């Protein structure tokens, strides 16, 4: 569905991605008292990146809990709680910290339903911030969503707009499966129109066509959605660019992407994760499987060049994928 069609007829409000996520959390906390937010400093402090804000004051400690700095422990507790009747939403302050909790993610959260022959629900949401651009260096800037998208039994979403940020957060919480919401921290201040309907959700597994075009398809995620839209506007008149926010990484909306590729014949995949063996490759593999004969040019990848995120600004800017990279990729194939 196109982004505009999605919003047509909806009452909306302009807000930032941060506010949109918080509104999504607030609505779900209100709707279902079994929704529990937990994480490091998410309570009284309001979150290091201020996403949970005043939810602690609004809902109290029973629903918004500060945890020890112990990712394995509280992610594991979220898994145990999800199997026994509550709906935890655990925050990983920086996705780089996921390594600490990986055991509970890969061997418990992802596998319990399957190993037990379907005899448990696992309604757990993990929110994790990703992305470079603020000089936070290698251990606080990673983009790791490929790990989770790759690992069977986990669902992964990564919003690029304020509307999707709210809609996917809510969809994740309502899902009976483990869903990771990857929030790029550089777009928390990005504004957009967000539906105010309390039951507005962005279905997991659906991409959003953010801008229609005829000549080239840019499949983007997170921060690169907005930057690609800017590039598309700048190229208008010369090149007609269609921009798709993948939104959901697993399951991936192959159909929307392939439909666009059939129309344009050219594609750029822009995602901040490291390029090799990754999210870009998966999207491209599916594109060639489904629409090989529609391809007019090699599909381009825009991502982090297989390095970690360095600290110093010129170094970080060197490796951080951006609109310029998207524009170069487009110009290479049109």
């Amino acid at each position: 569905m196109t982004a505009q069609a999605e919003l047509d007829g909806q009452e909306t409000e302009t807000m930032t991605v941060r506010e949109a996520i918080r509104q999504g959390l607030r609505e779900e906390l209100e709707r279902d008292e079994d929704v529990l937010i937990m994480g490091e400093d998410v309570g009284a402090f309001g979150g290091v990146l201020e996403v949970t804000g005043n939810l602690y004051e609004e809902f109290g400690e029973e629903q918004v809990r500060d945890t020890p700095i112990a990712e394995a422990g509280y992610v594991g507790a979220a898994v145990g709680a999800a199997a026994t009747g509550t709906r935890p939403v655990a925050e990983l302050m920086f996705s780089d910290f996921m390594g600490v909790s990986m055991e509970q993610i890969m061997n418990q959260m992802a596998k319990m339903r399957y190993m037990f022959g379907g005899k448990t629900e696992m309604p757990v949401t993990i929110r994790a911030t990703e992305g470079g651009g603020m000089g936070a260096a290698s251990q606080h800037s990673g983009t790791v969503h490929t790990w989770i998208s790759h690992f069977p039994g986990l669902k992964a979403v990564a919003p690029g707009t304020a509307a999707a940020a709210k809609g996917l957060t809510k969809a994740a919480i309502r899902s009976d499966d483990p869903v990771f919401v990857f929030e790029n921290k550089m777009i928390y201040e990005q504004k957009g129109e967000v539906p105010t309907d309390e039951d507005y959700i962005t279905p997991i597994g659906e991409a959003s066509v953010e801008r229609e075009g005829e000549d080239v398809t840019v499949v983007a995620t997170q921060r690169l959605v907005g930057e690609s839209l800017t590039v598309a506007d700048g190229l208008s008149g010369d090149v007609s660019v269609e921009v798709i926010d993948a939104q959901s990484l697993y399951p991936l909306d192959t159909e929307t992407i392939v439909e666009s590729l059939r129309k344009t014949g050219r594609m750029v995949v822009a995602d901040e994760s490291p390029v090799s063996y990754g999210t870009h490759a998966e999207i491209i593999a599916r594109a060639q499987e489904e629409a090989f004969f529609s391809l007019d040019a090699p599909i381009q990848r825009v991502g982090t060049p297989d390095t970690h995120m360095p600290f110093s600004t010129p170094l970080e800017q060197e490796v951080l994928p951006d609109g310029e990279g998207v524009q170069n990729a487009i110009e290479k194939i049109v």
Partner: protein
Amino acid sequence: MTDYTLETEDDRLEALRRMLTIREFDTKAGHYFADGEIPGFVHLYIGEEAVGVGTCAALDPDDYIASTHRGHGHCIAKGLDPDLMMAELFGKADGYCNGKGGSMHIADIDSGMLGANGIVGAGPPLATGAALSISHQDRDQVALAFLGDGATAQGQVHEAINQASTWDLPAIFLIENNQYGEATPVEKQHNVDQLSDTAQAYDIPGVTVDGMDITAVYEAVQEGRKRAANGDGPTLIEAETYRYHGHYEGDEQNYRTDEELQQWKDRDAIDAFKARLIDRDELSEAEFEEMQAEVEETIADAIEFAHDAELPHPQEAYDDMFSDTVPEIEKFANRARTDGGDSR
């Protein structure tokens, strides 16, 4: 369901029956594993029966347990059906997990069994989470994690106990110290002599009990449960016990002596409990023989059930990944349906 205690004569006989059932189940599981009929690994609970049964007798039927890779005993103590357990070990569709889990992953959330677990130390965070659900919904339950002496060295175990203690959650952590973490003796894995001493790190009570004495385990868990249910937070209990078989079936056991094994067998928990019941005139040798024969029949029936049960259809490999279907897996499932998966 753990609908027995140690308070009445009938319940004590039931507890003894469960101990015998565990031993018979695992004895036969060992045989069928050796014969190659049970695939994978099996980790037998033989020798540790008093711990599982003493613990579950002290819990309420609705309480949760998180188990370990050595979980058959916990399942039987908690009241799971040996037929469905054995069918799971044989990889059959009628098993608890429809053949997807096997020995190391038997689970039955409805019976409060949060799963055996192939990862050493992974159970305690799950129990903390279950205790969080209980506390959040103000339910009259507790969650107990079984963990081994080996698991006690795991970081996530510390995190789980610390969190449950900090939040005063209704949890109990029960260390089954069977003296060896796989093949390495406990002294080589821990600086503390008594693993219950680590309780001091969490400002919770820690006790060590004789894991070969079912009543000692029962009493400690009973007290732990009382504390948990009162909102006083978790308790750490160490039960000193011994596994008569290897870490896994077929393990050479070159790390211990026959003499050491015999010393523990001399204190066998089933023999001791049986002797006490006979001493108290609650059981006669003849009644014990009868009970043993009934248990053997129960397990023989379980094996027959497992033998006769159907293997899962290969197509079921594609089920149960999520609460709904995802196109990625559907694609493979459809291909398998049409051509047996050859074009995958």
